[in-house]
């Protein structure tokens, strides 16, 4: 080995602590980058392949009922490639071992297996047979959640009649990758599942022979202007279906499962960019400060090497190698752990997004990309430090450096400074001497604090969202939905059910709202003036009433339609006689989950020209009677769906505990690595710069503890300063996330719980103290005797 190479390895060994800290930060960044990027491309590739192979439709529409002959007319629309008509109904299910009634979506499939749009993947068992009309395929997650397998039976209320269905196979479909019930945000796989049943038997049960109530299309692949063509097809389809109770056609982006998956993909893409970027910036900064100090300490050596004839470039290269070794040693474990973590994340995704096969894609581009980005970053940090090498001339380097210049800062001239103990002045002046370094340290630690805060914020925001939704808006214990609107008197029967202490009827009708070129299909809900179990809130979380006239929209729906209070919009009822009216927007409400439109119950009845029909009821239930109520509900033919608050909250809590908490724990840990790395390196460098000074003070009779305060004081001050700075950054980053999560499905509010502040503070202080303690051990080994004889 060349002598200069030996110097490299010895110095590397000497600086192992500080470079390890930088390498750890690199490792975390690479880990995050590889993990999230791999998860992203795996999910994306699997989605595309699955959609393609199982012919996921491009346009979807539901309707009341149309004759099968219409399918040919739809197929003739320009741009349409294939058409699949189906019968899809929601029904109440009675699952063995489950007290509450479950909801099932029954989707018709041909009696004989043929390739089709929205095809199914058969995991186990066999396809249905015409000879067995009660045979069904059930979705895999629903089967798993309820421990159902091929051969098991379950009860279902089909059009008012209880039937025993037999599971013949377990299946998956690209239409239900994210399997949630209507109006639900998080999956509850025990109480909602998809069932595929033979078209004949389903149609017979619901009097839909020779008819369909759902259609999905694929588009011709050769179109030049896909977007425009899609819009044309949707418009054409709507025209055709309007006579048959069409509820409005929509494309993939409004398809529920696809929407959740796409939102998730968009989200990881954002995180996969900004989180590694933060780590890389910190790593570059750490490498820069370690090398800058090294160059200062090795002035003499640099001068000597140059005097021997080594060129500035080769000496600079020598220092560049430090950063390369550092990055490479962080890169490898980072890559491996990133892939491992990517596997875990992919497994986690598999719990919520159901594919026949979701495997982690180990992409060379991702790995090379991470390597390249980090190596480039490190070189940038090292180059900045190595630049100084070129400036050192041999003769100058042999002379000792002049004593550092200090001045009394502005702060010190103020009257406060008089009261400061001398050791505090030392701390302040050391900070003032290198304001940039201090600033960058504050920013570095601050960003870690911010990262922790964002992590906690997400949890707090979801918590807040749930609290608002389930304490203020949806206050019922049980919501029941009828197949068909029923006479208002039906509520009396509901009130007689066991345990029901209050029952509020409601009317929900599918409508299309139009304003200028924008339109949205939505369920318009009629609310009684005295509604307690479902309330409307404003942005201050105050309960407001539905105005006697006009529409009340959720703010998000108002944004989508581009309307606000006072504007008029066109309301098109998609049921019954399909009236079209001009309605004024009378107010906006601020729910955080979903979008919706409300009207006074009386005004809605008047609008629809009907005599107080009801679509369902919201119940307050005495928990002691819940089981009895549930078993009764399972057998009420008119009920098509039951939503139970406690079950919903329970499944949400489980998801938050499993997924969110794990992820946030990892993120907290990563952020703590940044704090640790920053503090450790900062203190090590202070110790290296001021070791002599501190040893002199020990000789003068200062205790270990006193010099520790002098050494750490600077860092402690920076860390404490970084906390409020980090909180501001955390607030900013959280605020930046709010628009990303401003969706139809849900919106996260910019609210912070106490834990959003306490957790980052505690984690930061603990990480800072632990890494400072690592350095503090070195104070015990200060050479007091050498200091008497050496000159800094």
């Amino acid at each position: 080995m060349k002598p200069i190479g030996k110097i490299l390895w010895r110095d590397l060994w000497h600086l192992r602590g500080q470079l390890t800290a930088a390498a750890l930060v690199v490792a975390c960044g690479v880990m995050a980058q590889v993990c999230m990027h791999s998860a992203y491309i795996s999910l994306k590739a699997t989605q595309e392949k699955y959609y393609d192979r199982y012919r996921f439709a491009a346009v979807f529409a539901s309707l009341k009922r149309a004759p099968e002959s219409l399918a040919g007319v739809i197929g003739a629309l320009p741009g349409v490639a294939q058409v699949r008509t189906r019968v899809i109904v929601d029904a109440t299910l009675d699952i063995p071992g489950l007290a509450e009634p479950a909801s099932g979506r029954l989707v018709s499939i041909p009696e004989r297996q043929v390739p089709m749009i929205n095809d199914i993947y058969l995991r186990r068992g066999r396809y249905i047979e015409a000879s067995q009309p009660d045979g069904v395929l059930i979705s895999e997650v629903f089967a798993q959640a309820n421990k159902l397998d091929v051969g098991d039976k379950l009860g279902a209320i089909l059009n008012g009649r209880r039937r025993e269905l037999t599971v013949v196979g377990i299946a998956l479909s690209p239409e239900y990758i994210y399997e949630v019930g209507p109006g639900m945000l998080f999956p509850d796989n025990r109480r909602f599942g998809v069932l595929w049943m033979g078209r004949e038997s389903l149609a017979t049960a619901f009097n839909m022979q020779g008819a369909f109530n759902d259609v999905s299309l694929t588009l011709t692949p050769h179109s030049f202007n896909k977007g425009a063509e899609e819009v044309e097809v949707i418009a054409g389809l709507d025209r055709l279906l309007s006579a048959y109770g069409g509820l409005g056609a929509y494309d993939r982006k409004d398809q529920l499962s696809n929407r959740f998956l796409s939102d998730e993909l968009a989200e990881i893409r954002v995180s996969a960019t900004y989180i590694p970027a933060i780590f890389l910036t910190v790593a570059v900064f750490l490498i820069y400060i370690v090398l800058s100090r090294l160059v200062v300490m090795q002035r003499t050596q640099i001068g000597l090497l140059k005097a021997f004839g080594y060129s500035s470039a080769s000496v600079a290269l020598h220092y560049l190698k430090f950063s390369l070794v550092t990055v490479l040693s962080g890169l490898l474990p980072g890559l491996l752990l990133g892939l491992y973590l990517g596997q875990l994340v992919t497994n986690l995704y598999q719990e919520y997004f159901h594919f026949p096969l979701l495997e982690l894609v180990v992409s060379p581009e991702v790995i090379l990309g991470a390597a390249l980005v980090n190596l480039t970053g490190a070189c940038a940090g090292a180059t900045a430090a190595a630049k100084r090498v070129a400036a050192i001339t041999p003769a100058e380097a042999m002379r000792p450096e002049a004593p550092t210049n200090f001045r009394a800062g502005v702060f010190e001239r103020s009257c406060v400074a008089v009261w400061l103990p001398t050791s505090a002045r030392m701390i302040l002046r050391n900070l003032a001497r290198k304001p940039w370094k201090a600033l960058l340290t504050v920013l570095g630690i601050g960003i870690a604090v911010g990262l922790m805060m964002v992590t906690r914020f997400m949890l707090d925001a979801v918590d807040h969202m749930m609290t608002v939704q389930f304490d203020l808006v949806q206050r019922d214990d049980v919501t029941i939905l009828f197949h068909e609107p029923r006479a208002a008197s039906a509520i009396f029967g509901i009130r007689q059910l066991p345990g029901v202490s209050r029952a509020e009827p409601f009317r929900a009708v599918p409508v299309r709202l139009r304003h200028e070129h924008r339109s949205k299909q939505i369920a318009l809900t009629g609310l009684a003036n005295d509604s307690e179990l479902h309330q409307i809130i404003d942005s201050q979380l105050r309960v407001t009433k539905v105005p006697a006239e006009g529409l009340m929209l959720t703010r998000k729906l108002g944004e989508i339609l581009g309307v606000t209070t006072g504007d008029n919009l066109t309301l098109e009822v998609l049921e019954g006689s399909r009236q079209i009216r001009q309605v004024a927007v009378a107010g906006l409400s601020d729910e955080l989950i979903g979008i919706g439109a409300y009207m006074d119950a009386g005004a809605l009845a008047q609008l629809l020209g009907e005599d107080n029909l009801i679509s369902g009821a919201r119940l307050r239930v005495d928990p002691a009677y819940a089981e009895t109520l549930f078993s009764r509900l399972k057998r009420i033919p008119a009920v098509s769906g039951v939503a139970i608050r406690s079950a919903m909250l329970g499944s949400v809590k489980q998801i938050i505990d499993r997924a969110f908490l794990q992820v946030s724990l990892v993120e907290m840990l990563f952020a703590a690595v940044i704090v640790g790395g920053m503090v450790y390196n900062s203190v090590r460098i202070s110790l290296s710069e001021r070791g002599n000074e501190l040893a002199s003070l020990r000789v003068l009779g200062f205790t270990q503890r006193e010099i520790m305060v002098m050494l750490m004081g600077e860092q402690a001050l920076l860390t404490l300063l970084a906390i409020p700075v980090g909180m501001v950054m955390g607030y900013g980053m959280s605020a930046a996330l709010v628009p990303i999560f401003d969706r139809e499905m849900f919106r996260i509010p910019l609210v912070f719980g106490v834990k959003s502040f306490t957790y980052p503070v505690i984690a930061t202080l603990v990480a800072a103290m632990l890494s400072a303690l690592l350095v503090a051990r070195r104070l015990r080994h200060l050479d007091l005797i050498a200091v008497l004889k050496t000159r800094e």
Partner: protein
Amino acid sequence: MLHPSGGIEAHPTTAESTGSVFHVHKVSKVYRVGEVEVHALREVTLDLYQGEFAVLLGASGSGKSTLLNILGGLDRPTSGEVLYRDHELTRADDAQLTLFRREHVGFVFQFYNLIPSLTALENVALVTEIAAHPLDPTEALKLVGLGHRRDHFPSQMSGGEQQRVAIARAVAKRPDVLLCDEPTGALDYATGKLVLEVLQLVNRELGTITAVITHNAAIAGMADRVIRISSGAIVEVHRNEVKLQPSEFSW
């Protein structure tokens, strides 16, 4: 009187040296450097008396620094006994030695070792803040003739001035003993003399035991006693009948 061990025991005869403050008895110090054992001190016995100005003279490597370090509580002997008044330094732990240095010892280093981020006054104040009965830092600076430089930082002062600040810092806590390791080693001739004058002044005004180690034999003239060390042993103790002023000798 030649001691059996080769060291020489000296007794005070002057009236102002009333009693032994440091008692060093048969102190040896052995370092291990790799495979080699270095005998830095060989059974040295020595007393330092109240108010005296002692110069420990020896070539580099003679062991004089080791002796000074042991006296100052920075190092422990391998064998033997060191008493400071009634404290047995040889048995003290690190915390006790720190306290000993803090309360009783003033150090002056060859390279001054001032804190660069503190002004002259603050460098002195840093020590007086932790002392029980210190001098006023301004008074201490005046004593070394630097009252007018109180607000200057080390980088703004000459070497001699820095060393005088270091002396002010060392004496400001009113130590019982002032230990100076080659205090003029880094200074030019004229400045060196100035610093020695300050040391003499402090010794005279405050009555602090002052031990200066040096390889510069000329300095010996200003001492009450000259203790010559060679190869880890005291080879000669000489008492000056007449103490010279630094202006009266040269090197």
